[in-house]
């Protein structure tokens, strides 16, 4: 951030203050800096992120401990990546963490509308797409490390508990494991950004939380149960179903998308939400 190019200072004009104030050109970089100050100066950011990490590691460890109590034998017959395999056991907290991060993302987007801070924000950054871009970049910068710490922590702790009880374990170097673990971190990040976009788009904390939670948790289940099988092709393109193609531990219905296609579909959802947010914030009155 300190390497941002400085514009030459304005010639010192009359000022009402002791020291001359030199304002610089408003750039995307400065908008990002501003959003960084905003996000780090809210205690709720850090409480939220800590909770996400704790949920992932805590629920993962709990799940591992429970499974070693019930499924004691190591066994060499069953594939480790099966439905109840060690990986999905240690990432048991991911479902809840995704939900939580969706809420935090929605808050990051809608919060300024409920506090009315948004007027000050868009007055300071009138090229408003920059507000959306800066918020997305800053949120991703906070969520990515959080998600990585969460999944890696859950993996390490969970596998430690499993191996201490001589239960089946997998290593990161095993086929597809690292991809699933990193994919889960990516999914967490994507849902945070989806929430952010919806929060800005809907300008309502409650509305955007409802939309994210509904879209991730409720819609796939309800639609899968109520719609005829012919709709399954469409349902694969829901965010949670797309994510299950590369996280493999999600249980949001049958996914037949390839991992690459799943990533692309999820990225498209994020891009659509942020794009719609940028379009809306630019077009409408604050």
């Amino acid at each position, binding site marked *: 951030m300190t390497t941002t190019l*400085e*514009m030459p200072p*304005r010639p010192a*004009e*009359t*000022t*009402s*203050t*002791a*020291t*001359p*104030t*030199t*304002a*610089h*050109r*408003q750039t995307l970089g*400065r*908008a990002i*800096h*501003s*959003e*960084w*100050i*905003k996000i780090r*100066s*809210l*205690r*709720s950011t850090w409480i939220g992120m800590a909770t996400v990490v704790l949920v992932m590691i805590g629920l993962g460890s709990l799940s591992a401990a429970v499974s070693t109590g019930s499924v004691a034998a190591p066994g060499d017959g069953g594939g480790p990546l099966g439905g109840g395999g060690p990986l999905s056991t240690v990432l048991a907290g991911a479902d809840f963490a995704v939900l939580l991060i969706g809420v935090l993302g929605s808050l990051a987007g809608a*919060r*300024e509308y409920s*506090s*009315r*801070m*948004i*007027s*000050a924000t*868009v*007055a*300071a*950054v*009138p*090229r408003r797409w920059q507000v959306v871009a800066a918020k997305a970049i800053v949120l991703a910068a906070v969520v990515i490390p959080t998600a990585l710490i969460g999944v890696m922590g859950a993996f390490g702790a969970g596998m430690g508990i499993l191996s201490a009880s001589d239960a089946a374990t997998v290593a990161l170097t095993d086929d597809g494991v690292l991809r699933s673990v990193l994919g889960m971190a990516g999914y967490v990040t994507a849902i945070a950004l989806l929430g952010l976009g919806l929060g800005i788009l809907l300008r309502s904390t409650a509305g955007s939380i409802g939309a994210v939670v509904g879209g991730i948790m409720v819609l796939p289940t309800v639609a899968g149960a109520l719609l005829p099988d012919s709709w399954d092709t469409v349902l694969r393109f829901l965010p949670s179903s797309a994510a299950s193609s590369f996280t493999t531990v999600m249980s949001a219905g049958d996914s037949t998308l390839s991992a690459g296609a799943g990533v692309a579909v999820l990225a498209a959802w994020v891009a659509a939400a942020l794009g719609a947010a940028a379009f809306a914030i630019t*077009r*409408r*009155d*604050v």
Partner: protein
Amino acid sequence: MIELQQLTKKYGDKVAVDGISATVRPGVVTGFLGPNGAGKSTTMRMIVGLDRPTSGTALVNGRPYAASRAPLAEVGALLDAKAADGGRTARNHLLALGATVGIGKRRVDEVLASVGLTEVAHKSAGSFSLGMGQRLGIAAALLADPEVLILDEPVNGLDLDGIQWIRALLTELADEGRTVLLSSHLMSEMQLVADHLLVIGQGRILADTSIEGFIEESSGGSRVVVASPDAGALARLLTGDGVVLTTREPGRFEVRDLTAAEIGDVAAEHGLRIHELTPVTASLESAYLELTRDRVEFTATAQHPARTDRTARTARPATDDTTKAA
């Protein structure tokens, strides 16, 4: 310099701002006056691009606000003192805003000191009283040392110290050659601080004039309140060319366009008794009420556009309350 050109804002069928054109000049404090819902805030919001005009343009220093290189250094605006996140400290709030134009800690601390918030700089904005929130909003407006200041009701919630401080501040800023536009519903406050007036009613500019000119013009000249037991006789004697009498209560009336001396002379000449003879200096408040009331009446009787203002005033029942003017 702020230039409004045919600026219009419609919400559906409702016209909030109706094609207003005006120039707000640097070097003076311009007061923006109008009843609730007249379009003051909407106009101010359009100047800084918060609301999008239905048609027309608002230019700041010759270009749209959104085209500004360093927006906060172009216009400092206080439009909504509550526009701060309650969970963030005052200092962090200003740091975040300042960062958009590369303004850092030193200036933020300086501005906090100048608005008197240094001691609560690390308290969350949510814990602030109305007056402290207002000071924070003013700090945000001053942060990047802007050439144009737009303040919507800045004295709202300020204590006496704060009001005197902002009065001096606005005058100082204008003296430095800045453009200062402020709205206030406190007419007396406006009279103290503003040099120029923009009066708006129902989305249209009703007056764009100096404050003295406005009072002179809108109040229809000087007035004298007369109390006399011989009111009837005196009134008959006084009624003449362009002289307007308004009866306020039995034995008491108001005269326009005659001085107290002239009225006293007439009374003495005819041996009529006078118990009270008070020249009334019109206040901005009464001038303003006069103007906006005419505006309301005019729209209510728009099917009779031929009537003149002066005759309409004579015919009006005596509900005037100008005597409270100092």
